[in-house]
C-alpha cells in the first residue's frame, strides 16, 4: 500500500492533463492561498506592529492572540462556517488564522529588535508615531518579516488543506478524498504539487528578496 514514485508521477500527469482534477483543484487552492497569504501578511503585519509598539496591546490583545493560536484549524472550521454562513470566506478565515500568527510574532520581534540608536536618530529628525514605524521600524524588521512570511506561507498551506475539507473543492479536498480511497499515489502527487509550488515561491520570491536584503544590510558576509 506504499505509494510508488512511478505511480505518483502517473497520477500527477493524469490529474493535471487527463482528468484535470488536479489542475482545477490547484487553481482553486492557489486562489485561496494567494488571497489568504496576502491577507495574513497584511493582518499579521499590522498586528505585529501593534504588539511590538504598544505594551498595552501586547499585554491584552497579545494574550488573546496567544490563547487562540494554539487552537487547531479543525476546531476553527465549524466556527468559521457559522461566522461566514458556510461561504468561501470560511476557508479564507481558517487560512488567515493559520498564517497570521507567525507573521504577527516575527513582525512583533522585528519591532522590538530595532537598534534603539536608529529610533533615536529618526526621532531627532522629526519622525514620530506611524511614520517612525513605517520608515524605520518596519524596514529594520525586514529580515524578521521575511521569516514571518515564509512561515505564513507554509502554515497557510497547512491550514488551507484542513479548511478545504468542507467540500468546496481545492487540493485539500482532493487530498482527503484520495486518502479516504487509499490512492496514496495521488496523495503523494498532491504533496509533490505543494512542494514544487513551495520551492518555486522560495526560489523566485523569498530567497531572491532575502539575498538582496541581507547584502544590502551588510549581513551576507556574516558566516
Amino acid at each position, binding site marked *: 500500500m506504499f505509494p510508488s514514485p512511478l505511480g505518483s508521477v502517473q497520477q500527477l500527469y493524469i490529474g493535471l492533463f487527463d482528468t484535470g482534477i488536479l489542475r482545477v483543484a490547484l487553481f482553486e487552492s492557489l486562489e485561496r492561498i494567494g488571497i489568504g497569504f496576502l491577507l495574513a501578511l497584511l493582518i499579521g503585519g499590522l498586528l505585529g506592529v501593534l504588539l511590538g509598539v504598544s505594551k498595552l496591546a501586547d499585554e491584552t490583545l497579545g494574550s488573546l492572540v496567544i490563547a487562540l493560536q494554539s487552537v487547531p484549524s479543525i476546531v476553527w472550521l465549524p466556527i468559521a462556517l457559522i461566522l461566514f454562513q458556510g461561504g468561501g470566506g470560511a476557508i479564507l478565515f481558517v487560512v488567515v488564522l493559520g498564517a497570521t500568527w507567525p507573521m504577527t510574532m516575527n513582525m512583533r520581534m522585528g519591532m522590538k529588535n530595532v537598534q534603539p540608536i536608529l529610533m533615536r536618530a529618526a526621532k531627532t529628525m522629526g519622525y514620530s508615531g506611524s511614520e517612525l514605524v513605517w520608515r524605520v521600524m518596519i524596514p529594520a524588521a525586514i529580515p524578521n518579516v521575511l521569516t514571518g512570511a515564509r512561515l505564513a506561507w507554509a502554515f497557510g498551506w497547512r491550514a488551507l488543506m484542513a479548511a478545504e475539507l468542507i467540500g468546496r473543492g481545492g487540493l485539500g479536498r482532493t487530498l482527503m478524498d*484520495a486518502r479516504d480511497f487509499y490512492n496514496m499515489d495521488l496523495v503523494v502527487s498532491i504533496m509533490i504539487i505543494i512542494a514544487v509550488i513551495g520551492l518555486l515561491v522560495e526560489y523566485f520570491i523569498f530567497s531572491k528578496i532575502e539575498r538582496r536584503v541581507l547584502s544590502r544590510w551588510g549581513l551576507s558576509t556574516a558566516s
Partner: protein
Amino acid sequence: GSDEEGDSAGAAGSGDAVEIGYFPNLDHAAGIVGKEKGYFEEEMAADVDFLNFPNGNDFIEALDTGVIDMGYVGPGPAINYYLAGGDIVVIGAAANGATLIVSREDSGIETLEDFSGKSFCTPGNGCTHNVQLEMMLKDKGMETNRLGGEVEHQSRVNPASMVSMFEQGQIDAAAAPEPWGTLLVEEHNANVVTEWNDVFLGEELASVVVVTTNEFLEENPEEVESALRAHKRAVDYTAENEEDTLETVNDLLYSLTQTRLPENVLEEAWTRMEVTTETHGEALQDWADASYELEFMDDDPDLDGFVDTEILDGITSE
C-alpha cells in the same frame, strides 16, 4: 436554510439553489445515481447543487450552518446531532446494512468469542459500526478498554487506514463499513467474523438516511417531496441496474480520486447492503438505546420526532 438564509446560499455561489450533500461511497449509490442521471434536476423546480463530504461530521456542520439543505448521511452523526438539540429530520432511507465484522488473516479471531484480549478498530468513536460490534461483544460478556474491559478498541481509524493497519498487523479486527470490509476480505485475506445481516440490527439498521432540517421541510415541502421522488427513482434504478450503478459509483470515485475500486469488491460489497427507501425507525431507536447502554451517551435517547417518512411513504404507496 432557504429563505432567510437565502444570501448564505448565495454566498455558496448558487443563488436560490437547493444544496444536496452526499458522500462518494457505495452505500450512497442512490444519491450518486440520482445526481448523475439528473433525476433531481428533472423532478425539482429549483436549481440543485451537489456537495460531497468526506465524513458525517462535516456533513452535519454544513447542514447546521445552512451550507446544505438536505442530503444523504449515516444515521450515527444524524442521531448524535439530533440528541444534541440539532434541527434535523430523517425523511427516508437510502441503504440498510453495510456493516461487516472482519479480522486479520492470522489474528486468531474466527468468532466473536475470540475477541477477548484482541484489538479492533472502527472509523469513529461511538459510530454506527462501533456500537454494533460493542453491543455484540457485550452479549458475549466482553467490554472494551473504554469501559475497563478486555478488548482493545481503537477508534478514528479511517477505513482506508484499516488496510495498512491490517497489513502491518497493528490491529486484529475491524467493524468496517462497506465497501471496505469487503475490500479487506477480497484483497487482504481478512476473515469475515460476522456477516452484514448477522450483525446487531443487521439488515434493519440504515446505513444511509435522507435528512433535511425541519425548517427547510416546513418552508419548502414541495421541494422536499420532489427530491424524494427523485430519490425514489434512483433507488428503483439501482435495484434494476446493478452493473450500471456500480459503474456510475466507480466513475464518480475516479473523477474525485483518480482511482477505482476493484469491480469484484464492489460487486461483493453490493450484496452486503440493501439499497432501499424503507426506513426502520425502531432500528434507529434500538441503536441509540444500545449506544446509551454502552455509555457513549450521557442521557437516555429519545428519538421522537427524529424520523418523519410521511412524504416518502406517500410517494412509495402511489
